[in-house]
């Protein structure tokens, strides 16, 4: 199968317009006969569900949480980028496009990335209209701040709760359309399989998480908006329920999985403090605007931070990357932290952290300004650690965060299964091998509000006159039967280890071998270890309770079963890519001074993996850089 990204003709700045001019339309009277399933209610899912409903489609929206408002977009803190150039600092759509392409180390499509920058400005207008209380200047205009990997101020924010405010706006629009009876909402449900009929996505099988009932839902198109899968590492910045099951099930039904191993490790999370820890809390990257990162020059230095004199501190980001300093992109900042920690300069009880220090910022700007900018983050830090970061530096550490990888989608956000779309973090589209800060809220929102509602009609127009299918079709019956069988099987194992035990094992293997830096031997051994975990899981896992009730252990087990398989694909992908690019750092491929060595001649393509019964089959989408010449990424 040859992958066709369906990139429209014309100059970069004309592509999206050209696409819209040629895309098929559907008469409003016919739209109301068409049904769309949206799985996930985060920024992309809720935005898509609300907008598709406004356009006239009937939407059914599913989420595993108790309410659409809980989706993990809620936790994004820092902000959302847009090329508004309100600061008059030389920003433009082109510059934002270029920053994003370069930030992703030239492993994303030019056309997609350009569209991301192009549509960013109207998105700020859109959210402002919805009532998002973005930060303002005294004169009443919108305020901005900077984020990593960028030299202009283009980030819009609402205190340290930007994701919450955008998500709640999307959630309220979703409920507006629920009231209009155009969206039906199904909270506390989990998608367990995708139903494909005659090669087209036609529905899903879900489990009602309260009653345990397995149900079938049919539609003319299915949209997955299920977020990232970094919980494969167990310890991550994600919500506990975040999972990769929906996209994994779609993958097994034929959707290609692109760049699965491209995972962003965020440099500023709180360090792990115990074995039993369930998650790592993120501290917004915006702190790097004013905070300075350092470690003691002396190895194994046991002095308290405030007792270490200035000349014995190593501000390693400023030293290695003088032009970007503490605002180097995330992959670079994380790797630099790991390098210092691995070399014995780590701080804190477990020597697994670095300092983020506001002493100079407080001296320069005054305590009040720092409180105004980051007050809620300092409060959060104190709640979790018990430490007052106005008086001593914060301790931070890298943590698994964002999945750049995801289901392969074309310019229309359609996967390799006709009628199946993937939007937001669960697709691979705009970020390449590393995502820039404050681009994730942007991509999720644009996919849901602006892009999908303009592309889905191109497909649905061909579905208008197709004979309808219903949930009695054998494909539905078989899928349901298989799921019921899997559930009964997993419950019947009745072994002697908990689900969490296996998740911890998997997390350790993945964190050691498939996170910030990778090598051939490590990945090969990881694959063997994961196979063993898989075997042990299916022989020894123990789940109490039964299937016809609310059973949180069963939910966890089903998610973990998919994570284990996904982990195998991630390691396979990381092993296949014999180069370093962005967050994918292969130790064998680095320059003399420890930077990523990209091998453009061999690897300027997106790896898209096909699931077969026995192995993962690689397909390549060659990346054609028509407008920008890939350069060596430098932040020095």
């Amino acid at each position: 199968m040859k992958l066709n990204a369906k990139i429209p003709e014309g100059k970069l700045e004309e592509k999206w317009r050209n696409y819209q001019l040629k895309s098929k339309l559907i008469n409003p009277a016919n739209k109301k006969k068409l049904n769309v399933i949206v799985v996930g209610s985060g920024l992309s899912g809720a935005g898509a569900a609300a907008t598709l409903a406004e356009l006239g489609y009937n939407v059914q929206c599913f989420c595993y949480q108790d309410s659409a408002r809980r989706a993990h977009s809620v936790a994004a803190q820092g902000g959302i980028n847009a090329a508004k150039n309100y600061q008059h600092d030389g920003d433009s759509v082109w510059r934002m496009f270029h920053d994003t392409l370069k930030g992703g180390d030239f492993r994303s499509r030019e056309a997609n990335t350009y569209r991301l920058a192009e549509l960013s400005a109207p998105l700020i207008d859109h959210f402002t209209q919805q009532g998002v209380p973005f930060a303002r200047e005294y004169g009443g205009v919108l305020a901005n701040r900077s984020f990593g990997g960028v030299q202009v101020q283009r980030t819009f924010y609402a205190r340290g709760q930007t994701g919450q405010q955008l998500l709640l706006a999307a959630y309220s629009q979703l409920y507006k359309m629920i009231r209009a009876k155009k969206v039906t909402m199904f909270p506390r449900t989990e998608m367990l399989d995708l139903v494909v009929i005659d090669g087209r996505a036609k529905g899903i099988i879900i489990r009602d998480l309260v009653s345990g009932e397995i149900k079938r839902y049919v539609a003319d198109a299915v949209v997955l908006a299920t977020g990232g899968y970094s919980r494969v590492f167990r310890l991550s910045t994600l919500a506990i329920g975040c999972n990769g099951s929906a996209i994994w099930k779609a993958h097994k039904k034929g959707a290609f999985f692109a760049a699965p191993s491209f995972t962003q490790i965020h440099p500023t999370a709180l360090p792990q403090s115990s074995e039993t820890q369930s998650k790592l809390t993120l501290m917004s990257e915006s702190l790097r605007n004013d905070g300075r990162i350092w470690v003691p020059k002396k190895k194994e230095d046991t002095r308290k931070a405030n007792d270490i004199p200035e000349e014995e501190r190593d501000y390693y980001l400023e030293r290695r990357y003088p032009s970007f300093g503490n605002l180097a992109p995330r992959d670079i900042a994380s790797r630099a932290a790991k390098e210092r920690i691995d070399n014995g300069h780590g701080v804190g009880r477990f020597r697994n952290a670095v300092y983020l220090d506001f002493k100079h910022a407080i001296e320069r700007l005054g305590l009040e300004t720092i409180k105004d900018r980051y007050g809620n983050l300092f409060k959060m830090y104190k709640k979790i650690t018990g430490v007052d970061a106005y008086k001593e530096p914060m301790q931070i550490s890298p943590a698994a965060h964002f999945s750049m990888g995801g289901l392969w989608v074309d310019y229309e956000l359609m996967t390799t299964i006709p009628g199946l779309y993937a939007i937001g973090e669960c697709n691979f589209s705009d970020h390449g091998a590393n995502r820039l800060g404050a681009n994730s809220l942007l991509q999720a929102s644009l996919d849901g509000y602006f892009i999908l509602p303009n592309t889905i009609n191109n497909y649905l127009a061909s579905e208008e006159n197709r004979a309808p299918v219903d949930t009695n079709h054998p494909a539905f019956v078989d899928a349901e039967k298989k799921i019921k069988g899997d559930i009964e099987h997993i419950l019947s194992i009745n072994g002697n280890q908990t689900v969490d035990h296996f998740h911890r094992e998997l997390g350790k293997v993945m964190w050691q071998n498939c996170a910030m830096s990778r090598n051939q031997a490590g990945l090969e051994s990881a694959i063997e270890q994961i196979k063993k975990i898989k075997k042990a899981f299916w022989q020894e896992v123990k789940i109490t309770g039964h299937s016809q009730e609310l059973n949180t252990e069963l939910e966890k087990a089903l998610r973990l079963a998919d994570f284990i398989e996904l982990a195998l694909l991630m390691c396979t992908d990381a092993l296949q890519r014999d180069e370093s690019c962005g967050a994918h750092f292969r130790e064998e491929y680095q320059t003399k001074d420890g930077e990523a060595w990209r091998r453009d001649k061999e690897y300027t393509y997106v790896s898209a993996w096909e699931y077969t019964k026995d192995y993962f089959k690689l397909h390549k989408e060659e990346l054609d850089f028509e407008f920008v010449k890939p350069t060596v990424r430098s932040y020095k």
Partner: protein
Amino acid sequence: MKVRFKIWRQDSPIDKGSFKVYEVDGLNPDMSFLEALDHLNEKLVLRNEKVIAFDHDCREGICGQCGVFINGRAHGPHENTTTCQLHMRSFEEGKVIVVEPWRAKAFPVIKDLIVDRSAFDRIIEHGGYISAKTGTASEANAIPVGKDIAERVMDVAACIGCGACVATCKNSSAALFTSAKINHLNSLPQGKPEEHQRVLDMTAQMAKEDFGHCTFTGACEVECPEGISINNIAEMNARFLKAKLFR
């Protein structure tokens, strides 16, 4: 660290439910409260017992899905915090920790510590939004909003919808929750066109959902993780009166 959990167990909405005591060892003070429950649940699985069902997701205090009564207080002993941000260092070695679900007629128990808070969603459904279609927005800076107003709006927009206000109120009133959304949208120029209808619809839905009335005891603002002020309820009432008079 060792503690004794006294936890509400209720198998289903129709089950009567009762407290059960669990001795838990092997905890450490840096564990979060929910991690202590995870720890207990793993032990229960290995003892062939059903796990304690509790709601949680982000575990960083922002999604609003967690929330239980701990020793008689919503979200535990500290003010302005969520259950997931509570750590075991806040409890004394060997002491009893009583854990119950939110108790309110409008929030029926689904199982153990999990309650149904969909009444909050239905209040939002009845006007907790600005009726503007995607694609119709004008330039963001065309409508200036003063920094003081933006800040005040952010104070109430911060509501995480956890339900602690209802659970802690002796009347099980949802006035703080409802007022937060009304004051958020009605204070902004974008929310003005629908301001009166919004107050009337949202408060009507609140009344329909079996929430009690507010008698200004002030309990809600003490437990609100976001510290949303009870003044918002007075402001909502004023807006309600205005809507009745001028609509």
